């Protein structure tokens, strides 16, 4: 009985949040539409939502094609970068001194806006899809590497001592204690990284690309086809949200003990 009421309350809360979000969103759209209508703003600076809306469906084939092109880069880079970081951290973390040094260096590198390198990396890794995936991977690597090293090396000593009294091997300690207790941070980093990855994928396409939604935005902006530019941004938002909430769902499934 108690559980059911809590669940009901939960659903009620979600519904409330959803309604509020939707109304805020609608309000922004309305203000946007009216602002453009009443200020007579130049059509090559801003277009009203009512002009963007039909384009979203009319040019679905082009937009989807370019979106998929970009998200292939994004997902490939995101998963590779994050995975390499996790695996590297697993091998490095048993060496305490080394881990400390790596954390320091990575935090330093992470403070550099690496996306600035996208302009120059094109010459090294090429302007193709692989090149973009490498840039995305690079941007996802450092946050994940730091998170993993930190959480692998900051384990509650009491719990570890307990496992040691059971004469658990280091491998057992890692799989039973260290890794599971690091999962929340790993998944949170994955969630932050997917947004970083989308941003890196789209922006790196501004510096020369063989396709993709960033490339499309650049091309259509040059022709002042703003409805198409906004439609492209809409597609990015939708796809980005789907990715973000998928990772969130994975978080809830894999770390049920954390709310």
């Amino acid at each position, binding site marked *: 009985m108690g559980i059911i009421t809590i669940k009901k309350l939960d659903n009620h809360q979600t519904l409330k949040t959803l309604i509020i979000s939707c109304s805020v969103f609608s309000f922004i759209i309305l203000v946007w539409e009216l602002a453009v209508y009443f200020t007579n703003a130049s059509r090559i600076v801003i277009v009203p939502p009512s002009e963007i809306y039909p384009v979203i469906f009319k040019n679905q084939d082009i937009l989807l094609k370019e979106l998929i092109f970009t998200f292939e880069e994004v997902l490939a880079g995101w998963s590779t970068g994050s995975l390499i970081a996790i695996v590297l951290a697993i091998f490095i973390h048993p060496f305490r001194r080394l881990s400390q040094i790596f954390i320091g260096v990575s935090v330093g590198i992470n403070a550099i806006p690496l996306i600035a390198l996208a302009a120059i990396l094109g010459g090294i890794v090429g302007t193709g899809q692989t090149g973009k995936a490498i840039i995305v991977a690079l941007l996802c690597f450092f946050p994940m590497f730091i998170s993993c090293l930190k959480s692998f090396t900051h384990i509650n000593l009491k719990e570890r001592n307990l496992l040691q009294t059971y004469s658990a091997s280091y491998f057992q300690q890692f799989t039973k204690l260290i890794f599971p207790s690091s999962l929340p941070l790993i998944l949170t980093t994955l969630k932050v990284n997917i947004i970083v990855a989308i941003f890196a994928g789209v922006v790196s396409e501004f510096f*020369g690309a063989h396709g993709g939604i960033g490339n499309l935005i650049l091309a259509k902006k040059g022709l002042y086809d703003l409805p198409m530019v906004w439609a492209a941004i809409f597609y990015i938002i939708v796809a980005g949200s789907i990715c973000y909430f998928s990772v969130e769902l994975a978080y809830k499934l894999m770390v049920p003990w954390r709310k």
Partner: protein
Amino acid sequence: MENSEKSPPFIVVAILVALLAIGIGYFYLNQNKDESGERDKITLQLKWVEQAQFAGFLVADAKGFYEDENIDIEIKPGGVGINPVDVLITDEADIAVAWTGNVLPAISNGEDLVNIGQGMQRSAMRMMAKKSSGVSSPADLAGKKIGTWPGGNELEPYAFIEKQGLDKDRDVTLVSQGFDMNQLLNDEIDLASAMIYNEYWLPLEAGYPESDFTVFDMEEEGAGMLQDGLFVRRKFLEDNEDLLVRFLKASMKGWDYAIAHQEEAVDLMGIDFAENDVTARDHQMLSMKEVAKLYAADDALEKGLFYINKDKLDQTVEIAQTYVDEVGEIDIDKIYTTTVWEKAVEGMEFANYEESLN
């Protein structure tokens, strides 16, 4: 008690605020600094970075032709992500050197921009393919990777593609091209955009024989559009016609001098030459030669530099409307005026270019 101990001493806060105020003040004062006082200020936005393409304007500035006309000119270089049309519309420049193909989509979206003088008399755009890519005629474009420069420089390639009965968004792969020819040389793209006064020479300077490439001249392919025209907002034109006449006069003198004294012009541009890229002196000399041929061409040779050839303008608008979906209805009589040019060209004496154009 504890709280008051923790808050920083007043003097530190005061110093920080003062520094911030100085910083902000310095920034804004620098934005509006006015050295000339008397002379009329005008801002010219170039299409691209300072190079031989704009030699005449830079020479006019260096030799004081603008000063002679009582003009204090600020020449703003362009660059990646700077669209001269955007700069013009947002009032950050009074005059823009822009490609007509770049201006037309803005005009068909309701912007009131006017052409007051036409620099280059014909298109300088080429599309270049390696013969090994299998492109030997315009009919071979389907399914190819085609390099363009998005941001207002892509209308001619688009028209060229659509003219072959292809859909630019579906039948070919459009690749945004860097401002070099590496993607073409590395076979990343099949067809590259190239300006006859710049990129066209890069592969040749790198040692590739001219016979390796198939070159399409947009002018000959019926996709050529006017480039490097002088555009202003109508409001500015109405309020400052006399200033624009003086500006155009000084610019004509600058270009006249640059075309007749090409080597001196390249040195007068005030750019730091590099060893061996597009800013190398040899490359700029080559570029100057081609640019001169584009300015002192066709009707401009007899009637005077910056002549607006209405037929060419008509043709540009027609090509854009026929082949580029993004360009809508345009009233051609509203996008140019010959008044400024007629007043500026009065009493102008141009040099004889025969020798220097070879």
